[in-house]
C-alpha cells in the first residue's frame, strides 16, 4: 500500500515536471482525455490509410454497387461499388487534413491582424475592424461558399476558403485579449526599457493570451470539419473521385432510403471527430484557465 502511494506520487511529480499543472487537470477530465485518444486514433488511421485500408478507395465494381455491409466489406459498398471502409479511412486524410490546414491558416492571419489591431489602435485598428465587421456580417458557411466560388473547386481552395472564413472571429478574439494585456504594467515596463514593439507583441503579449486562442482553435477544428463537409456535400468541396467525408454523403444522399449505409458511415465519422475536438476544447479550456485550476486544486471539482 505504502509503496503504491509512493509510486503514484513519484509518477505525479514527474508528470508535473514534464507537462505542468494543466496536463494533470486535463487528465482529470475523463471525457476530454478519452476524446483525445479517439482523435489521435482517427488521425493515425488516416495518416497510415495506405497500409490500413483493406481495398483501394478508387477501385470500383459497378455490378456490386450499394451492397450492404458484409464480412468481406464491413461498411458495405458505395453507389458505384467502391469499398466504403477504405474510402472512409482515406477520407479522414482529406477531412481532418483540411481542418488542420484551414485552422492553421485562419489562426495565423487572424491572430497577427488581431495583435496589430489591438496593440497599435487608432486608424489601423479602425480599418481592420471595419473589414472584420464586413466579414462577420455573413455567416461563416456562406462566407466559405462565396470564397470557394471565387477560388474554384479543389483541396487548396477549400483550405483557403474555410481558413479565411474563420479569420474575422480570430481577429475579434485576439484584439479583445490584447486590449486586456496591452495596459498591463509589464508591457509598460518593457516599453520603458526600450524594447521594440515586435518584442513586446510576440514575447510579452502573445504568450499571455495564447491559451484562449488555443482553446478557440480546438473548437474551430471541429467546426471546420463540419464546414468542409458541408461544402463537400454541396459539391463545392474536393472534386470526385477523391474520398472526402462530406462529398461522400453528398453523393450518397440519393440512396438514403434504399442504402442508408453509404451516408451513415462517413456521417458517423464526421460526428465523432467534430465531437472529439469540441470535448477536447472544453477540457483544455478548464485546464488552461488558472482560475479554474485553483478550484480543482482545492478539490471542489
Amino acid at each position, binding site marked *: 500500500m505504502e509503496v503504491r502511494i509512493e509510486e503514484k506520487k513519484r509518477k505525479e511529480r514527474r508528470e508535473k515536471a514534464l507537462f505542468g499543472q494543466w496536463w494533470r487537470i486535463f487528465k482529470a477530465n475523463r471525457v476530454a482525455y478519452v476524446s483525445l485518444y479517439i482523435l489521435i486514433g482517427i488521425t493515425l488511421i488516416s495518416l497510415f490509410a495506405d497500409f490500413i485500408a483493406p481495398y483501394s478507395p478508387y477501385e470500383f465494381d459497378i455490378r456490386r454497387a450499394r451492397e450492404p455491409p458484409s464480412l468481406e466489406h464491413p461498411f458495405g459498398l458505395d453507389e458505384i461499388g467502391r469499398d466504403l471502409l477504405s474510402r472512409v479511412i482515406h477520407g479522414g486524410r482529406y477531412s481532418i487534413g483540411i481542418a488542420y490546414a484551414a485552422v492553421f491558416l485562419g489562426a495565423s492571419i487572424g491572430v497577427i491582424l488581431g495583435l496589430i489591431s489591438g496593440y497599435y489602435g487608432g486608424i489601423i485598428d479602425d480599418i481592420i475592424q471595419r473589414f472584420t465587421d464586413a466579414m462577420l456580417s455573413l455567416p461563416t458557411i456562406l462566407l466559405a461558399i462565396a470564397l470557394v466560388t471565387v477560388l474554384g473547386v479543389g483541396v487548396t481552395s477549400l483550405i483557403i476558403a474555410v481558413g479565411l472564413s474563420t479569420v474575422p472571429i480570430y481577429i475579434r478574439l485576439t484584439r479583445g485579449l490584447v486590449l486586456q494585456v496591452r495596459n*498591463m*504594467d*509589464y508591457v*509598460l*515596463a*518593457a*516599453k*520603458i*526599457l*526600450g*524594447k*521594440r514593439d515586435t*518584442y513586446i507583441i510576440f*514575447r*510579452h503579449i502573445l*504568450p*499571455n493570451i495564447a491559451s484562449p486562442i488555443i482553446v478557440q482553435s480546438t473548437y474551430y477544428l471541429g467546426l471546420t470539419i463540419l464546414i468542409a463537409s458541408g461544402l463537400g456535400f454541396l459539391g463545392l468541396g474536393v472534386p470526385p473521385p477523391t474520398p472526402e467525408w462530406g462529398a461522400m454523403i453528398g453523393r450518397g444522399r440519393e440512396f438514403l432510403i434504399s442504402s442508408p449505409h453509404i451516408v451513415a458511415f462517413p456521417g458517423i465519422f464526421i460526428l465523432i471527430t467534430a465531437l472529439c475536438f469540441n470535448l477536447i476544447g472544453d477540457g483544455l479550456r478548464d485546464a488552461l484557465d488558472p482560475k479554474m485550476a485553483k478550484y480543482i486544486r482545492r478539490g471542489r471539482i
Partner: protein
Amino acid sequence: MKILEVRNLKVYYFLHRGIVKAVDGVSFSVEEGEILGIAGESGSGKSTLAHSILRLIKPPGEIVEGEIIFQGKDLTKLSEDEMREIRGRDISMVFQDPNTYLNPIMKVGLQVAEVYEAHQNAKIETVLDKVVNLFKKVKITDPEKRIYSYPHELSGGMKQRALISMAVALKPKLIILDEPTSALDVTIQLEIVNLLKEMKEELNASMIFISHDLELLSEITDKLMIMYAGKVVEYGSTKEVFNNPKHPYTEALINSIKYIRKDTLPTIEGEPPSLINPPNGCRFHPRCPKKFDICDKTEPSLITIDGRKVSCHLYGEEE
C-alpha cells in the same frame, strides 16, 4: 553639469469632462550624480511627470508645452525610434509594484537579458553570464538558479531587485524611481533603498526619486521638490526644505510625518483640488491655514528666496 533640465513642462489630459492639467508649468534640473526627490499627494502629477520625461504619455494625454533637455537633446523633439534608443539605455525606471511589472509567464533572467537584446542586438544565450553578474550585484541569492525562475517563485523584495537589475543593466545616466519601496515590507524597504544608493555610487548616475515618504526622501536625496496640483510649490536643497519649510503646504506635509512625537495626528484639511477646475489664485488656498486676501485672486509665481524656490504670496514682497 546638468544632466537633465525640464523647462516649463505642461502635460494635459484632454478628457470629455474637460482638460486635466496634470503637470502645469514645471521646471527643474538634475545635476550629474545628484538625487532629486519629488514629493506630493496622490494626484499631484508626480507620476505623470516621470512618464513624460520618458515620453510615455498616452492619448488623451499630451505634452503641450515645454522642453525636456537631456544631455543637450530636447527629448520632446526626438522621433519615436530615437526615443526608444534612450529608454532603458540612458534613462531607465524602477517601478512601484514589482508584482505587476514583471511578465508572469517569462523567466526572470530572460526578461533582464531582453534589455541587452533590445539595445545591443545580442543573442540571449550570450548575455546570460552578464545577467548572472547583475543578479549578484543586486544581491539576489543563488543567481545561477534564479535566472530560470518565474516571477511568482520570487519574493516581493527579490522581484524588486530583479527590476532594479533591469534598470541598471545598461549603466544609464539617469534612473527614475517611481515609489520603488511603497509596495514592499518595511524591513525590505531599507534593503532596497541601500541597494539603490549603492547602485547610484557605482554607476555615478543621477536619480529622480518619487515618493510619498518624506522621511525617506529627507534621508537620501540632495534636493527636494514638493508638488501640489500639478505645480511646484517648493524646490530646494533637501536639508533646508526639510528643516525650514517656507511654503505652508510643505510645512503641513512635514508636520504630518512627525506626529509620533505629538498626541494627535496633524492632517491637512480638505482634499486635493480637482485638476479640471483648479481653484483661482494659489491652488492651495482653500486648505491653507495662512491664507490672506490676495491668495484666491492671483496665482503666486515661483520666486527664489534664501537659495530656494517657493511659490507663495507670503514671501511675495521680498522680491
